[in-house]
């Protein structure tokens, strides 16, 4: 074994168990056809450390994780587990070593119960039969132990996406007994849920579990990690000890330039009122009265499940209101379909890119142009040139990393997919833009671009409703901030008029 090992010397000297890194990568590489997703990387993970990985969208973070958990097979390179080369060809093999991951998109079975999901692939069996009651009890005690207040017997599909994410975490933590990877775990979590997660991660670290943590939120990286590695364009550009670096250095390593300011905010003269709701009620929200003016960003903050998405879906005609009224540029309207909302001049970039935002097995160009086919149709037909021009312009403007407008959306990284969700509305000529969690899974550089884009839309006379569960984002950007709690609009603040703490307590309701 040693003989075939080009780095044999390292393996030989690493006899003292404690000094052998738990996992070591040598020249690990992955290509998807022409895409070089991960260029040969050397990296070691020490026992019991929390190792953060940061990088732009499409930098190769998820690819690295998938390689380590046996989800995809590597193109070349070697992986050493406690000094011994391992194949890691299947998820099963990785689980056997005690390696597990919480993947970026929640991957669990909606039709099975929480307990069944937690023990999937590792069921308790007696006399050939499943011990269902036993497993439910165990799952419940694990959940209770972790402090997640979730029932173990309900169907997973009945939980919110954030709760599902927590179940995925709990599940990974009972399998990844040695090495646990989190790929953007907080993207769908509320603040309290995130706090629960951090507590869990620290506890696992105390137990000697090695943790890899991927996030676009740098403050989380600084809060949690011991070391941080930076990926850029598939290349591992460096590893830093977290205590010895700072946000500016990380950003410049990630995007190869410095970024003075992430939250790009411009102030415009408030124009005429575009949209106004009076005591609007609908499925999931009650009695919401607010107005949006041209040149203004109205922020909606709240915990996940507070009813903000439901509110904007009703504005967009996806659900029908049950009470109250909507005024569009002063005139009362009854919006009954998405098309009607679009014709009025409303655009909505929905919160779930996978379920609501994208046709992921269709090309990028198709997705970008889908909302505007009625505009570019001539005599019932879509002219090829208009189709191509508009798609190509969007791809260039948004710097979408794709092999062309013919590439399928499913081959893009998470963040680049998010750019398509937003980009498809920019050509539409709307006056009111609704962005529901527009920066979930988006890297800092792109976030800054998106914020610039908002400013550009405002400058052109549009109004914006911005929904975010990430308080700094709405706090820094919104001209007027509404706080939602359990379907109600419980507070309204002008720009920077209240502190983070005040807003949080309003959202939680203590």
């Amino acid at each position, binding site marked *: 074994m040693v003989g075939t090992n080009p780095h044999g010397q390292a393996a030989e000297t690493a006899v003292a168990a404690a000094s052998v890194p738990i996992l070591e990568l040598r020249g690990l590489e992955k290509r998807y056809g022409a895409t070089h997703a991960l260029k040969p990387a050397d990296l070691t993970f020490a026992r019991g450390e929390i190792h953060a990985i940061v990088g732009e969208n499409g930098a190769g973070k998820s690819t690295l994780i998938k390689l380590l*958990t046996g*989800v995809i097979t590597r193109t070349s390179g070697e992986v050493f587990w406690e000094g011994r080369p391992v194949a890691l060809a*299947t*998820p*099963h093999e990785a*689980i056997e070593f005690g390696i597990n991951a919480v*993947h970026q998109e929640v*991957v*669990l*079975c*909606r*039709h*099975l119960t929480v307990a*069944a*999901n937690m023990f*999937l*692939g*590792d*069921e308790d*069996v007696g006399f*050939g*039969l*499943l011990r*269902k009651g036993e497993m439910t009890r165990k799952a419940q005690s694990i959940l209770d132990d972790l402090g997640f*207040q*979730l*029932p173990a*017997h*309900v*169907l997973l599909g009945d939980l919110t996406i954030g709760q599902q994410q927590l179940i995925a975490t709990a599940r990974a933590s009972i399998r990844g007994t040695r090495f646990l990877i989190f790929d953007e775990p907080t993207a769908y979590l509320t603040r309290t849920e995130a706090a629960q997660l951090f507590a869990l991660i620290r506890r696992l670290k105390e137990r000697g579990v090695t943790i890899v943590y991927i996030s676009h939120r740098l403050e989380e990286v600084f809060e949690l990690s011991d070391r941080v590695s930076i990926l850029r364009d598939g290349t591992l550009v460096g590893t830093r000890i977290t205590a010895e670096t700072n946000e500016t250095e990380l950003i410049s390593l990630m995007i190869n330039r410095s970024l003075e300011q992430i939250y790009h905010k411009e102030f415009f003269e408030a124009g005429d009122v575009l949209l106004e709701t009076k005591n609007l009620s609908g499925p999931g929200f009650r009695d919401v009265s607010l107005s949006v003016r041209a040149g203004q960003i109205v922020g909606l903050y709240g915990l996940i499940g507070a009813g903000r998405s439901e509110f904007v879906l009703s504005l967009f005609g996806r659900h029908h209101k049950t009470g109250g009224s909507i005024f569009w540029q002063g005139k009362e309207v009854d919006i009954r379909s998405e098309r009607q909302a679009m014709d009025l001049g409303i655009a909505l970039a929905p919160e779930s890119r996978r379920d609501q935002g994208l046709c992921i097995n269709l090309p990028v160009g198709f997705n970008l142009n889908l909302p505007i086919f009625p505009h570019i149709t001539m005599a019932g037909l879509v002219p090829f040139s208009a189709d191509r021009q508009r798609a190509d312009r969007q791809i260039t403007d948004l710097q979408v990393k794709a092999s062309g407008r013919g590439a399928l959306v499913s081959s893009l990284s998470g963040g680049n997919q998010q750019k398509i969700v937003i980009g498809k509305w920019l050509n539409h000529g709307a006056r009111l833009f609704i962005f529901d969690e527009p920066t979930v899974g988006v890297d800092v550089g792109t976030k800054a671009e998106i914020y610039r884009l908002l400013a550009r839309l405002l400058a052109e006379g549009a109004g914006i409703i911005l929904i975010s569960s990430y308080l700094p984002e709405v706090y820094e950007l919104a001209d007027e901030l509404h706080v939602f709690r359990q379907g109600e609009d419980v507070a309204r603040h002008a720009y920077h008029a209240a502190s983070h703490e005040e807003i949080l307590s309003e959202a939680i309701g203590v």
Partner: protein
Amino acid sequence: MSTDTKSAAVVRKSSANWLFGLTLLGLLLAMCLVLSLTTKSFMTETNIMNLMRQGSMIAILAVGETFVIITTGIDLSVGAVVGFCTVIAAWLLTHDFSIFATVIITLGVGVAIGMFHGFGIVQMGLPPFIITLATLTSLRGIGLLVTNGATINIVNDTFTEFSRNDFVGLPNLFWMVILVGVPAYIFLHHSRYGRYVFAVGSNMEAARLSGVNVKLTVYLAYTLSSTCAAFVGLLLAARIGVGNAMQADGWELQAIASSVIGGTSLFGAVGSVHGPLIGAFILATINNGANLLNVNSFWQRIITGLLIILIVYFDQLRRRRG
């Protein structure tokens, strides 16, 4: 969420499931009630025995089909497998194989066909619809070739009497439903691989990432389906006393319809063993009742179609509400 409300939710959930099973059973019983009021002959012992015989073969097929549908697949070949296996069984019996050997070999043929489907889907990456459609076509051809387009007469009386006889007051055929249904129930609802069948149907990627052997599970589902079909082939050969490759034409659609009437979702991950069984007997009762009421054969088709729509519609409603 407190433990109390949690367990309350459990009770509600499982009683709803139970009620759903009941409601289908209720429908079946209501149909029986109406028929026993409108005809003299429905509630006679012979007719009930006939009904049990008539429903049982589709019922067994529907159980096998259900495994496949739960994995989001479909098995269009089951009717052809039945026909083909009547030929195999008849051929073996006329070539002096013992009944025992005949049963084992015929079931083995079923297993082989199922493995082939698994191979096509897992290894070759073919859509289940296509590979099973291809097998449908080819198997009928092979069966016809074996018999040279004719029927093989089965002269073994022990074999042919099996489908006719009763045991402890129930037709043997109905016992066969129980023989298949009980292990199938335990397998699907209480075994590890049964659960994997659901997991694969719900989210194949998640199942794979959890270390579930997805390929094996798919193989298993198709093999069970084909084996059930081969078993039905044996029963059919015994019942009609001949081997004929063109028999059981269209039974795949009846099996699928039974399964869906019994609450199986064609989008996968939803289904049971008892539902399809009840579904098959509902269809059998529709036909039996129509025959007893001497409804024109053409109206029978029309009514069957409409009832399928109605039953599945109300089932959807109930599930959406529940």
